[in-house]
């Protein structure tokens, strides 16, 4: 492994030469499409989309230190964040549970970002009680035939494949009859209907399966052992939280501090509304504490010091934090925080209002705050039920 300092130098040199100025904006959704596409190809070729995966599966083959150094350099350069369900959730799950054939088929595509994945977990009748899911898979030769409905499927309209929880044993107790299966979205028997949300956006879909087909060899982990695989995958989902600003829709164009300063104004160097000022400070302190706690979780685990799993706090505290930021933003705008579209409202005000609406989802998806606290009480604090 290359010397760490030399490696950082190398990364900086590549970034200086190859990363266009227009893309140096961090976690934003309005980057120029062509440039971003080219950059993602380049990232994939270098193994930088999945730096810690083995090179044989298209990863960068880097150890933890070098991976952390790479991520730090990318962040410093404000490089766009290439994240996907494949990178953050399915990939780590396949590395742990996948067969060699599954790894060889699917991991390189994820590492190059050439195949888009979506997650088929929630159903209309199975939200927090996910294990009650009813979507059926019945064996027919070397295929499963799938019937049922999924909801809250992010990016289903653009996805090529889905990783999906289906019921494969209809008589077993609810946790023991579920399998984790992969199949293509582009086929007869799969229909996607966009779901318009509270902020007017349609990032989520409902997906209907009526005789969709999946290869038997694409069950990940043991047959009827999908609940364990899914729980592990959700840990990957939760461990990705706590790092990104802005919540579900990404960071706003303008920092919360700059936004509030413009909305409220300064008098003698202080925000003119003392209550908003204190709330903003409290929010910024909370954000620091969250990020330091997530860093501590990693460092303590590495040093073998961790007593209780503090990573478990990340999801619900992160959700509260991103929601609170938008509460402050909208409150600081007063009636200007009520706009839906122009004229009469600044773009930045409308952006914040929409974010205020959509971030309500952050304490619901991926396990509601209530579910997170149940998990902490039971598993982390060990309070018997």
């Amino acid at each position: 492994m290359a010397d760490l300092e030399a490696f950082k130098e190398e990364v900086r040199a590549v970034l200086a030469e190859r990363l266009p100025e227009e893309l140096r904006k961090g976690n934003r959704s309005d980057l120029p499409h062509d440039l971003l596409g080219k950059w993602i190809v380049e990232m994939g070729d270098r193994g930088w989309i999945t730096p810690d995966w083995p090179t044989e599966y298209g990863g960068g083959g880097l150890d933890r230190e070098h991976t952390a150094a790479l991520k730090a350099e990318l962040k410093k350069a404000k490089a766009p964040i290439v994240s996907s369900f494949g990178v953050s959730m399915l990939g780590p799950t396949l590395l742990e549970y996948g067969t060699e054939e599954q790894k060889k088929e699917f991991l390189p595509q994820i590492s190059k970002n050439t195949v888009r994945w979506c997650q088929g977990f929630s159903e209309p009748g199975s939200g927090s009680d996910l294990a009650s899911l009813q979507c059926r898979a019945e064996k027919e030769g070397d295929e499963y035939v799938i019937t049922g409905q999924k909801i809250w499927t992010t990016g289903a309209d653009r996805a090529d494949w889905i990783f999906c929880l289906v019921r494969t044993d209809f008589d077993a107790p609810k946790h023991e009859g579920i399998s984790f299966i992969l199949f293509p979205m582009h086929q007869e028997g799969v229909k996607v209907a966009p779901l318009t949300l509270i902020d007017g956006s349609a990032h989520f879909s409902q997906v209907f399966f009526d005789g969709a087909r999946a290869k038997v060899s694409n069950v990940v982990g043991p047959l009827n052992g999908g609940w364990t695989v899914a729980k592990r995958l959700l840990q990957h989902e939760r461990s990705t939280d706590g790092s990104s600003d802005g919540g579900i829709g990404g960071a706003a164009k303008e920092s919360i501090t700059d936004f509030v300063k413009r909305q409220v104004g300064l008098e003698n160097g202080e925000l003119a509304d003392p209550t908003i000022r204190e709330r903003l400070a409290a929010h910024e302190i909370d954000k620091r504490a969250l990020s330091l706690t997530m860093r501590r979780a990693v460092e303590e685990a590495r040093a073998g010091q961790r007593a209780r799993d503090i990573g478990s706090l990340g999801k619900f505290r992160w959700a509260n934090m991103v929601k609170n930021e938008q509460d402050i933003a909208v409150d600081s705008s007063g009636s200007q925080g009520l706009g839906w579209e122009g004229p009469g409202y600044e773009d930045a005000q409308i952006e914040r209002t929409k974010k205020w609406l959509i971030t309500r989802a952050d304490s619901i998806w991926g396990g509601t705050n209530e579910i997170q606290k149940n998990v902490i009480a039971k598993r982390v604090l060990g309070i018997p039920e």
Partner: protein
Amino acid sequence: MAVILSEEQLMLRESAQTFLADQSPVTRMRELRDAFDDTGYTPEIWKQMADLGWLGILLSEDHGGSDMGVADLGVVLWECGKVLAPEPLVSALLLGANAVRLSGNQTLQKDLLPAVAEGDRIVALALEETARFHPYNVATTFSGGAISGTKIHVLDGHVADQIVVVARTAGNAGDREGLALYLVDADAKGVSITRNRRMDGRNAATVEFDGVEVGADRLLGDADLLDQVIDQATVGLASEMLGTAEEAFERTLQYLKDREQFGEKIGTFQALRHRAAEMFSELEFARSIVRDALSALDEGRADAAVCVSAAKAQASKASRLIGAEAVQMHGGTGMTDEEEIGLFFKRLKAAELSLGDETYHQRRFATLQGY
């Protein structure tokens, strides 16, 4: 930037835990409170703390110390907070002696600090004059070589051998400019000390200075020194209070697991489970941010003051929640003097309101961040 403990700090923590478990159960604090003797702490324990090297952690080897950092002292304070040790660690070390240590006055350092490390000298800081904390609200004057004014909430002022006094050579109360710190003997002519008995069993004092003559050789520094002293003491206090909060939380958690009502453990009730998760998250947030502030001070980071205020704000928030919930979850038992949880509750409140509460530090954080 260290958010986890080093190997040395883990060892220091273990030795502190062993010593305190052996020598300092919470009952000791209660006995001292009830006895209300002259000191309010145990001089023999103070001496043992000196022997363990705790009193010299911040002092240089020349002054009988071990030249370690605020983060190391923070480890010790955390453990002392867990058992409600009443010794004047924050008051005498981080407020009083620290003003001498951080000053440029080498004569006074040489005269005083070795005795501090030995546990033979208690130095208090006389700063506050208004009930709501603000370090520049000083009207006490230094003029014509004499100090006059009245100080309140002088922590452990009743046992001080010497007192660092913050006085004003120019300007008005509230101004940062014109402040000066002097070292005064507690038995100097014109000094009168009235002990104040606090609800948490600790002691403060009201100290009057009536034309107390002070030589120029007793000058320690100005507002820069004061800021430095207050920042270090604030994070030290935050460490101690989080030790207290941690223990209050652990005891409450155990109570949820033990106490039965309606034929079930009360910890099975979701209303309590969720609140326990909240308490845990506030505590862990506070632990992270206080460790960061400790290391910011030791590393002399440019944004150390920001880190300090963030830390005390979060520590106060966590303590407030945990203290209140600890009593509430203990139910009627928590209201009795006999049950120790009440001692933790009172200590937490005292720490919360000392050296600036959550709101004070939120405002200071905002000011430092330019809004």
